[in-house]
């Protein structure tokens, strides 16, 4: 039972830390935006810790009769099950006493629940990965037929469309794509900054960073805090790419490019209402223009907390 309580405590601590990361109450306002890379790592550690703990709570409570850590108990339980099934298959019926006393239907249901949670987490991630790979292959095939190289955008493919778009098609051989509308919209300096931004996405495989969060949002679409975590990480990924681009170019061209994208025509959102995309663009522009130095203490503290939160459930699984 103690193990279950530990796992539950990890979930609670992760929830509180996630609150701190999104609202930045305790760790001070906005450090995550100034150290996006550290913040992304924290989110990944938190995500993994919550996943491990979510499996751990029902598993530990279900297998409590074994009186050992959940990792070893799972091993013993699987061994016992195998022994029972072998006996069944041999026609001797289910042997009495093969499972420890106290492992009744309620606890077995909890073990099943743990297995189901693990299956959903792993399954949705794999499914999302396969879907993304399929969509990317289709996109790449079409791009090979209609994209063209253009001296105005070195290293990128150009799509002949008047709309403004700039994106990265991730993969082993990533491709940066801009539309003809983007070429019209931006001056050469701004375009260079945007291309650097996209290359940063490609180099750091930001698509894979986002994938588990996207997968979970898809598996559990009604869970609002999952969506909030996804959006927070998505914004941090953009800011990280902004940081890499500003290191190669000045801040101004990137900020100007963002503003041009923001004001390219009227928006889908009704007049007066700011869509999330607008708020995010605004936050990114403000960040580039303010250029406050990255803090040291708070990211370090958050890293320690996140690492501890990840190590705790991991060590619970390993404890004997």
């Amino acid at each position, binding site marked *: 039972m103690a193990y279950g309580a530990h796992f539950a405590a990890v979930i609670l601590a992760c929830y509180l830390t996630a609150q701190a990361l999104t609202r930045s109450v305790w760790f001070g306002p906005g450090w995550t935006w100034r150290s996006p890379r550290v913040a992304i790592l924290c989110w990944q550690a938190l995500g993994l810790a919550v996943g491990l703990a979510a499996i751990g709570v029902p598993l530990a409570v279900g297998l409590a009769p074994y009186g050992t850590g959940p990792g070893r108990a799972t091993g013993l339980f699987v061994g016992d099950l195998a022994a029972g099934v072998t006996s069944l298959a041999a026609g001797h019926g289910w042997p009495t006493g093969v499972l420890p006393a106290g492992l009744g239907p309620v606890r077995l249901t909890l073990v099943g629940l743990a297995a189901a949670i693990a299956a959903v987490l792993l399954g949705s991630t794999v499914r*999302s990965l396969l*879907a*993304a790979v399929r*969509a*990317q292959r289709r*996109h790449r*095939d*079409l*791009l*090979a*037929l*209609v*994209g063209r190289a253009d001296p105005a955008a070195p290293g990128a493919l150009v*799509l*002949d*469309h008047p*709309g*403004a*778009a*700039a*994106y*990265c*098609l*991730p993969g082993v051989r990533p491709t940066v*794509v801009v*539309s003809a509308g983007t070429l019209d919209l931006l001056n050469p300096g701004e375009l260079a900054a*945007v291309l650097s*931004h*996209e290359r940063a*996405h*490609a180099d750091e495989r*930001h*698509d894979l960073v*986002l*994938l588990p969060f*996207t997968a979970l*949002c*898809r598996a559990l679409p009604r869970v609002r805090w999952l969506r909030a975590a996804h959006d927070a990480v998505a914004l941090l*990924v953009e800011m990280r*790419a902004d940081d890499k681009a500003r290191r190669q170019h000045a801040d101004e061209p990137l900020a100007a*490019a*963002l503003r041009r*994208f*923001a004001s*390219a*025509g*009227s*928006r*889908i959102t009704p007049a007066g209402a700011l869509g999330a*995309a607008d708020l995010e*663009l605004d936050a990114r522009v403000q960040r580039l223009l303010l250029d406050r130095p990255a803090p040291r203490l708070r990211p370090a503290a958050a890293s320690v907390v996140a690492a501890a939160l990840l190590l705790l459930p991991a060590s619970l699984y390993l404890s004997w």
Partner: protein
Amino acid sequence: MTRLGDLERAVMDVLWDRDPAADPVTVRDVAEALQNRDLAYTTVMTVLDRLAGKGMVSRERAGRAWRYQPAASREAYIAQLMLDALDLAGSRDAALVRFARSVTGTEAEVLRAALTDQAQVAERRG
């Protein structure tokens, strides 16, 4: 770009640059249009076969030969890529990473309309 990718593109350009109302073409027609590349008949056939496999061209039997036509117009493919790029395609996969999303309501409608028109044309043909 690989040689095969390059050829696929050249073949699609031949199909797209023809009058859309004209009859579908045979392998020989395509090979003739690309005669400056000096391609073997079988090479063109292989490329068209690959394109059909990817759903980029549709084909029908005409006597002993296949006749080919593009499955969709160049504009429709560009529209499809733009919908993907602007996250309007309705898929929630993390397939692309975008710089910034910016599209007007009318632009989105135009993009979607380009796809619907194409689907209707395909239906009428089929």
